[in-house]
């Protein structure tokens, strides 16, 4: 279980579990685990996946992000992010993650914050 948790947090890689690769009896488990972690490989260090093609630039994520509210307080009351300090900023009609390392999910803190995902109308943000 400890290994699985570390795998989900991306502290370890699947190949570090050598029996999975060396012993034939684990072939099915290897295939299933590979399937499970494939989406994770596309995400950032925070597990956050942003699909820009779905984004409408509504700015819900900008307004709900607690980090944005701290570094640019006006965003919490609905204003657009205008500085380079926030996690999210809507540029050219689409949201961009401009400071991923400030996200509360970023290692080593890895807080289980999902407000941006919950606030997204169109599921452009997903957290894995």
């Amino acid at each position, binding site marked *: 279980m400890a290994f699985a948790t570390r795998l989900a947090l991306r502290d370890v890689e699947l190949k570090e579990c050598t029996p999975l690769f060396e012993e034939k009896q684990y072939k099915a488990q290897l295939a299933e685990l590979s399937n499970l972690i494939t989406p994770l490989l596309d995400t950032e260090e925070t597990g956050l996946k942003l699909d820009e093609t779905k*984004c*409408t*630039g*509504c*700015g*819900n994520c*900008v*307004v*709900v992000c607690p980090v944005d*509210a701290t570094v640019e307080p006006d965003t*919490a*009351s*609905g*204003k*657009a*992010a*205008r500085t380079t300090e926030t996690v999210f*900023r*809507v*540029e*050219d*009609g*689409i949201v961009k993650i401009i400071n991923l390392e400030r996200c509360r999910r970023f290692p080593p803190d890895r807080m289980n914050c999902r407000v941006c995902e*919950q*606030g997204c*109308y*169109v*599921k452009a943000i997903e957290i894995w």
Partner: protein
Amino acid sequence: MQDTVCCGCSVVCDDVAVAVKKTNLQSLGLCRLGHEYCNSVFNKHRLTTALYKDGSGKLGPIPTKDAIQQAKSLLKDNSRPLFIGWSNSTQEAIQIGLQLSKNQKGVFESTASFEYGQILRTKLQDSESEQVRLDDVRDYADHIVYWGVNPAESHHRHASRFSIFPKGKNIPEGRESRVVSVLDVRKTESMGLANHQLILSPTTGDVEFLQALIGELKGTQQPLAEKVGGVPTIEFLSFAKQLREAETIALFYGNGLIHTTHSAQSLPLLKQLKSTLNRGKRRCWTFPMVAYCNTIGSVKASLKSSKLPFSVDFSSNPPKPITSIFKSLTDGQFDCAIITNWDALSLLPGPMAQALSKLPLITFSTLPTLTTKKASIVFPTALMGAETSGTAYRMDGVAIPLKPFKEPPQGVLTEENVLQQILVTL
């Protein structure tokens, strides 16, 4: 980056910035709709010269001053002009349009007539005493209701700027301090954010639901069936309970509620619901979710000039309302029309568009449209907000001064300027 105001929809965002590059625009804070709207200043199909349909029936370029003379002649030769559009025009242009309509004894009609009709008249008359702004919604509304409208598709930043998410004076936790309810006939994107997701029956669900809700809130409700207007009774009761417990309710309604075959019943019921909720310390504010950026401005200007919200017939003094623009157009009561920044022929119902297309048309537009194709005279105009100063009225009736970020292309004037020149020459 320079500050600007977006005129892409009726939220009229004034907290955004743009940087003009050689062939495109960079923006901060504009939603996808707003960015595309502002970026259309670089549209390669943009109209940059005035066009005039000569004897051969083909539109060809002419100098703007000649087009103004042609427009003058057309208006002089015809006694019953229609001035239509106005929701994508600045307040200053609308005022000149009203003056022109008055001088020519024509009919002034805005898109408000097709969008929200008499509701806007009542709303604006109410709001004179009420003066509720979207900023008040952000600061005080602890229950947000969207009824028959999906801001996720139509007004992208509405929820983040004013209704669901922002923190306000009495709303310390933003989304967590509010209850959100969405009522519609289908599962919408906005519903995904709601505590109460109420899917009404598409036939007369809203009428049944409103009647039952008013009864429930007044305590006079008869025993309920299994469903109320298509909504399971348990969900209906839970919604009613939370409305009763709210301090300030902001109800935003859209075409899904008002453009139905039974709106004659549902709209008075909505008004009744509002007065039922406005009891004791509890407040209820209602807002129509108008689409265009200055629909409210066109109604305000018209009310100020004629005491009528739209459909104003200036052929009599005092001006009187025309009974139906549909009937007036299809009966052939007009002999020419000025259409301002509105693709009327694409958007009006078939019989009206057909009747309009038979008239000599003077149109104002930034881009070629079906209406400009059929027009006799076309004036290319500066893009509202992006290339024009002036004022637009947000959906709550707040005046927003525009901040243009670019000069219009050479030879392209503002609608206000062209209308003024026509007015002067006449």
